[in-house]
């Protein structure tokens, strides 16, 4: 199963939130970011990949180093006012789906 890739998924993880806070005031290399966390380097790299895919970070190659910057546009999108409304409907429809599945267990789509 593919992980959902959206900004909300990205910041559901405390380490990823901490990475964003760290980058809020400065751009850093992957190595410098990893040095700030107890997690293993590959774990931090994975988090950086997810944050980049969700457009919360941008990458910039400087010589041999890859720098990560916060993408304010992506961050602002999180505060988008449509999202809570979407979540409300999602929750509502999830309940409906669960109800109908329970009533008709022989009927998977």
């Amino acid at each position, binding site marked *: *199963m*593919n*992980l*959902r890739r*959206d900004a*909300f998924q990205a*910041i559901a993880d405390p380490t990823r*939130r901490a990475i*964003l*806070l760290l980058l*809020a*005031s400065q751009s850093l290399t992957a190595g410098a970011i990893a040095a700030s966390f107890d997690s293993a380097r590959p774990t931090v790299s994975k988090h950086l990949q997810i944050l980049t895919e969700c457009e919360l970070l941008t990458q910039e190659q400087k010589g041999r180093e890859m720098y990560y910057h*916060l993408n*304010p546009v992506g*961050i*602002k999108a*999180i*505060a988008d*006012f*449509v*999202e*809570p*409304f*979407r*979540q*409300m*409907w*999602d929750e509502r*429809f*999830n*309940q*409906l*789906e669960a*109800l*109908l*599945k329970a*009533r*008709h267990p022989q*009927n*998977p*789509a």
Partner: protein
Amino acid sequence: MEPKTRVKAEDGQQDLLITRTFELPLPLLFTAYTDPAIIEQWMGTKVLKLDNHKHGGWQFETTNAQGQVVFRAGGVIHEFVPDQKITRTFEIENAPFGPQLEFLEFESLPNGAGQLRMHIVYRSVAQRNQQLQLPFAKGLNLAHNRLQDIVGQLLTR
């Protein structure tokens, strides 16, 4: 994987498009709009009237533990095609929102999943935006508020 429910609300427009793909076959999904028992369970409201045909109408009512009516909504049915389409109005009684026009379209996807597309048209842009902000107003989304705190911290540094 895409989120199951998508909402499209363009700036300055007075409509919304809500799309949801269910892990349910279409005929079963459609019963969520035609079977009063399912509606009552799903929406937690009592079905007073449900005449699903052209020129028909509907009315739902929710009462609290003391038996007082806390919510009543209703509307008329303009178009009803089983497993395909419902066109109706929706209005909450004694509320400042006014009626909205809803086009519900149902489709069976190639993988057997049922998809619902709800196109909702409001009287004005302001009224639509008021609806969008309802979850905030009702405090339905504490997680979102937490996010806003985080984002706020990020944006003010």
